[in-house]
């Protein structure tokens, strides 16, 4: 948005820097380490995901009690709650097959590029192909649904 606070993007950038540094430090940017977890050869991964979830959970729980709105956007502090439907299961299962095959997820793939893993461009290219394919299909079926509703 054009009228956002001038510090909005710099702050998002700094948050991304810390986030990416953490993915490098934790070795989540290394597909081998994720695969080793999934094969029960190194059980460290939950310390990353749940460690991060606990830190963010404290902020999500405390900030709404301290302030009404975020200083750079004026948006209220809300938790990340999304409605449940079968897409969560279908998408989660498809993601699970891809994660288990490749050992990489989106955030870790961006950080992986940063630590020098040029080969990860294969995964990033695949992710864009996959995201485009589902978006292409869902845009079409969405338009078809709308047309069908309009015809009634």
């Amino acid at each position, binding site marked *: 948005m054009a009228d956002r606070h001038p510090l909005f993007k710099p*702050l*998002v950038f*700094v*948050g*991304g820097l*810390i986030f990416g*540094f*953490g*993915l*490098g*430090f934790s*070795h989540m940017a*290394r597909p081998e380490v994720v695969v080793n977890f999934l094969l*029960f*050869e*190194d059980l460290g991964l939950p310390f*990353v995901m749940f*460690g*991060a979830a*606990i*830190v*963010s959970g404290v902020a999500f729980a405390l900030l709404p009690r301290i302030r009404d709105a*975020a200083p750079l*956007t004026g948006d209220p*502090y809300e938790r*990340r*709650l*999304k409605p449940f439907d079968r*897409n969560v*299961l279908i*998408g*989660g299962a498809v*993601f*699970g*097959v*891809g*994660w*288990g*095959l490749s*050992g*990489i*997820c*989106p*955030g*870790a793939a*961006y950080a992986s590029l*940063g*630590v020098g893993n040029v080969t*990860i461009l*294969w*995964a990033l290219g*695949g992710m*864009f*192909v*996959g*995201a485009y*394919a589902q978006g292409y299909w*869902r*845009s079409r079926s*969405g338009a078809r649904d709308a047309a069908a509703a309009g015809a009634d």
Partner: protein
Amino acid sequence: MVADPVLLQAVAELFPNGVSRYAVGGLLVGLGTVVVYVGTGIPAGASTFLESTLSYVSGRSRFQRYVGSRDWRLVFTAGIVLGGLAFAATVQSGVVTTSLYEPGTTGRLYEVAGVTLWTTDVQPWRLFFGGILVGIGTRIGKGCTSGHGVCGVGSASKTSLVGVATFLTVAIGTAQVVAALGVSP
């Protein structure tokens, strides 16, 4: 209490690289999320970037809904890439040393202009086809390891807990099958 050597050995086998690099990295991932949230109120995930960035080149409605957030998502992702590079230039290069970091033995290290970089041995076809499924699944499933796993679980969202349980279980099964078929790395 006497430390049981059998127990100690079992723990060492389950955590051959210790837990500190994982725990410290996780705290930093959480801190990055909190920095964005405190300033903006946004619980940011990483996978929406895939669709929001496609809105620059595709007019399809599914991507155009992210036009309002595509600029800052690009900035967030650029930060993640450069955060990885900052890690490579400091800890991975040995410029900054800490006992909390366990370097491990995966992949291959190489040097460019004095910076120690790292690259994977996992085969490109696994990365590419796995990547396609990650791109489809995270977007249909409403989130990835950061959106569901960090922000959603941190929000005690039932949707995200179910999402995480689903992709974690399926990923374990997939990796076991792939390994059993003799695919390595």
